[in-house]
């Protein structure tokens, strides 16, 4: 190979050309701002450019009172331009990038930057800025254009590595924007920032709250962290680092090192605008004895919580939001009477795992179901709470036969689809067989309490719960009245009294009958005497003694009844005297005497004629008449 020239000679010639060039022949010095209209909350970039500065050039940056310089950086570019035949042109461009923020609203002016070199001074043009209060969106032309040159783009790692720790978070939450992080005024070197991955969610839908330290100083330790009050949220811890682990992040062009303090999953339990109050932390900066402790307060956040849309199942808890699957696991489907069966109701998916309520196992009366034990398994995946909640029931068959565990349903709201869904299980059939197997041989593990309870169980227990059956034999009855309302009662009650009354009346009558007065007695006697006289009349044709004896007895009986005294043994004279004493008139007395004497004569002188007998009867009748007048 043949050599074409000397390389050393060419380099020497280039050096001579460079030394011969004038030092500030073509100095350019200017400053530009990336936007001319900003808000007091916005950070803008001021770039001061010096083209071909002398080696001794000194740049004095503007230090206006109306602006705060958050950071500054410098970069230098050198380029060599080879033109045809001429010497190469070497150009050096030095850029100073200042991140600034206005202190007040108004029309403000960034004063010129000053370049001093070799006794000469260059000044840039001042930059006029229109500053408004708060935050001003960059104009579309500015927002769409390329960002200003990054002074650190040529820096090696770590600045050149991953810049945003929320990179994957933004994949899941596209609504998240980088300008969520605002640098607080006065604490720009070290501040706390709380962020949520979603600003608008449904009730029960997960929101992830992250609490970061943004720092541009060295941290020694975080002594205390006070998490915000989370009223209206059910919260679950997702991540709580025990050691500070920093990552680089560029915020508005300013490099920060971020440290995650806490990450929590929040599940709103009510609708409306819910507030996440500010978190606080005590942070020690610096190393060893040079460090000092500072207190930082984060920003507060608002989360807009939408109520679940209408059309959902009535009474569905607000925690039933997410993506869920329901399953039923039975330890065995064929079991001997007296052996327990373990039934697991498994609800797994993404959502508020610890707050969901799986559907209760409703078993028929032939199965005794003990209270379940609940176990949760939470596995956060990409900051989403997911896992499973298992309710384990111990079921004791009470009767032999085939028993069906009914299907279960778990209604929930899926925020991704915006619709209500239902997770279901299929019915499970259990065959309970008679057998000698006891609880001790139960193949499934059971808690001691359950085993003790199960051991005391009788086999084929027919529980007393439930409706008693109908009566299949009816005894028809009229509507029954009380005994005292029945028709017989009052008459029966009064019957003794009536009977007594009747007997009294009868007794009275009988008494009257058995004790006649004197008048009636005399009348009866007189009547008997007349009756006797009538008997004597029948003896007219008979013997004289019998006839006259009967007539005499009739007359005497009549007189006894009238005189109230016996007259049987009296002589006629004595009888006449007694009659006279009784007030009988003489004529009647004479007739009585005549009849008695005629009877004596007739008895003792038989043969009297029939006409005489007839006459004596008439006389006797005449004696008995006329006494009551």
């Amino acid at each position, binding site marked *: 190979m043949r050599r074409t020239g000397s390389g050393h000679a060419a380099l020497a010639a280039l050096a001579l050309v460079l030394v011969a060039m004038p030092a500030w022949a073509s100095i350019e010095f200017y400053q530009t701002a990336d936007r001319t209209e900003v808000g007091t909350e916005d950070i803008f970039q001021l770039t001061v450019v010096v083209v071909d500065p002398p080696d001794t050039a000194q740049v004095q940056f503007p230090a206006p009172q109306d602006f705060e310089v958050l950071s500054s950086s410098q970069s230098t570019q050198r380029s060599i331009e080879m033109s045809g035949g001429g010497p190469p042109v070497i150009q050096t461009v030095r850029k100073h990038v200042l991140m600034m923020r206005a202190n007040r609203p108004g029309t403000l002016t960034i004063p010129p930057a000053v370049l001093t070199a070799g006794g000469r001074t260059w000044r840039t043009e001042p930059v006029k800025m229109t500053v408004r209060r708060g935050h001003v969106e960059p104009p579309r032309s500015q927002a769409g254009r390329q960002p200003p040159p990054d002074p650190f783009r040529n820096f090696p790692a770590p600045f050149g590595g991953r810049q945003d720790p929320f990179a994957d978070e933004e994949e899941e939450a596209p609504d998240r924007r980088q300008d969520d992080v605002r640098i607080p005024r006065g604490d720009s070197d070290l501040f706390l920032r709380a962020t949520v991955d979603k600003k608008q969610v449904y009730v029960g839908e997960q929101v992830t709250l992250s609490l970061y330290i943004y720092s541009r100083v060295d941290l020694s330790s975080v002594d205390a962290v006070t998490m915000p009050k989370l009223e209206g949220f059910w919260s679950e811890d997702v991540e709580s680092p025990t050691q500070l682990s920093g990552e680089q992040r560029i915020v508005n062009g300013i490099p920060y090192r971020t440290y995650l303090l806490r990450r929590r999953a929040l599940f709103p339990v009510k609708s409306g605008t819910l507030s996440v109050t500010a978190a606080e932390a005590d942070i020690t900066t610096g190393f060893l004895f040079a460090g000092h402790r500072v207190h930082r307060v984060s920003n507060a956040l608002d989360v807009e919580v939408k109520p679940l849309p209408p059309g959902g199942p009535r009474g569905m808890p607000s925690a039933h939001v997410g993506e869920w699957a329901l399953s039923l696991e039975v330890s065995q489907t064929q079991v001997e009477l007296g052996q327990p069966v373990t039934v697991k109701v498994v609800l797994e998916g993404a959502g508020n795992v610890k707050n969901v309520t799986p559907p209760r196992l409703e078993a028929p009366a032939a199965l005794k179901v003990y209270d379940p034990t609940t176990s949760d398994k939470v596995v956060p995946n990409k900051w989403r709470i997911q896992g499973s909640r298992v309710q384990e029931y111990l079921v004791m068959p009470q009767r032999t036969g085939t028993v069906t565990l009914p299907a279960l349903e778990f209604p929930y709201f899926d925020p991704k689809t915006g619709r209500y869904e239902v997770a279901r299980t299929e019915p499970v059939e259990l065959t309970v067989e008679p057998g000698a197997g006891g609880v001790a041989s139960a193949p499934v593990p059971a808690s001691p309490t359950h085993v003790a309870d199960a051991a005391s169980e009788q086999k084929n227990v027919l529980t*007393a719960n439930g*409706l*008693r*059956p*109908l*009566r*299949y*034999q*009816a*005894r*028809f*009855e*009229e*509507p*029954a009245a*009380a*005994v*005292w309302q029945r028709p017989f*009662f009052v008459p*029966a*009650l009064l*019957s*003794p009294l009536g*009977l*007594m009354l009747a*007997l009294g009346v009868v007794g009275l009558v009988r008494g009257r009958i058995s004790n006649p007065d004197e008048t009636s007695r005399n009348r009866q006697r007189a009547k008997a005497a007349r009756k006797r006289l009538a008997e004597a009349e029948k003896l007219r044709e008979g013997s004289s003694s019998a006839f006259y004896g009967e007539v005499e007895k009739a007359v005497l009986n009549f007189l006894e009844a009238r005189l109230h005294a016996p007259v049987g043994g009296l002589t006629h004279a004595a009888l006449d005297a007694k009659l006279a004493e009784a007030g009988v008139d003489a004529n009647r007395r004479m007739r009585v005497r005549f009849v008695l004497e005629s009877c004596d004569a007739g008895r003792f002188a038989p043969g009297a004629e029939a006409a005489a007998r007839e006459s004596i009867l008439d006389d006797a009748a005449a004696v008995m008449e006329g006494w009551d007048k």
Partner: protein
Amino acid sequence: MSAITAILVATLLGQAYYSPEEAQLLFQQANESFLKQDYASARDGYEKLLSRGFGGPDIHYNLGTTYLSEGDLGRAVLAFERSRRAGGEGPDLEANLSMARARQLDKVVGAAPEESFHERVVTATSGNLVAWLFLGTWLGGFAFLFLFRVLRPGSRIWAVVVAGLLLTASLPSGALLAAHVWVHETRHDAVVIAPTLRAREFPKEEAKVSFEVHPGLKVRVMEETGRYVRIRLPNGLEGWAEREGVAEI
């Protein structure tokens, strides 16, 4: 077969009078309807029997069980109470009545006011038994009095002693019977059957509502005026409620 049965039942339901055999058939058909969970047909059958005079504790019990299966607590308790009053006591009646009461919405809190002595005695005794006891001692006493009169002197003193004992015993039983009659005529137990029965301070529509009661609660009707009755709860709480809201046992 089922069509024939249906026609037969429809014919029976339309009849004004039933023979005992027809009543028994209708009873069995109502039971069959209950088994098929056709509670409305079962209820119709039992109520037809009752309206035709074929009552009794068993019909009331079955009717109450049907109402309970339908979830009508008020009428279920009413039928069970009527069955009990008709002498249908039994473990099945007590169990179903307890179940119905367990489902009641109202919980009456507070001790019941002290009942009067005679009310407690009446509650503790059977009116029919007392009536029979009084009638027996009364008639027996007089019977022995008559016997005393009939028997010869010297061998009849025992009759008058027995008569005296029986008539003496008839006095307290008579007093007890009088208490039963008084309570029967003045005390009226009822059951709330309206879904919600408002008890007011006065028997007027615009009067303030004191409390509300619900089906199945047993109350006592104290008096009535217009379309209102004054009800008393077991704890003594009182108010005026619409008459249609309660049914007397």
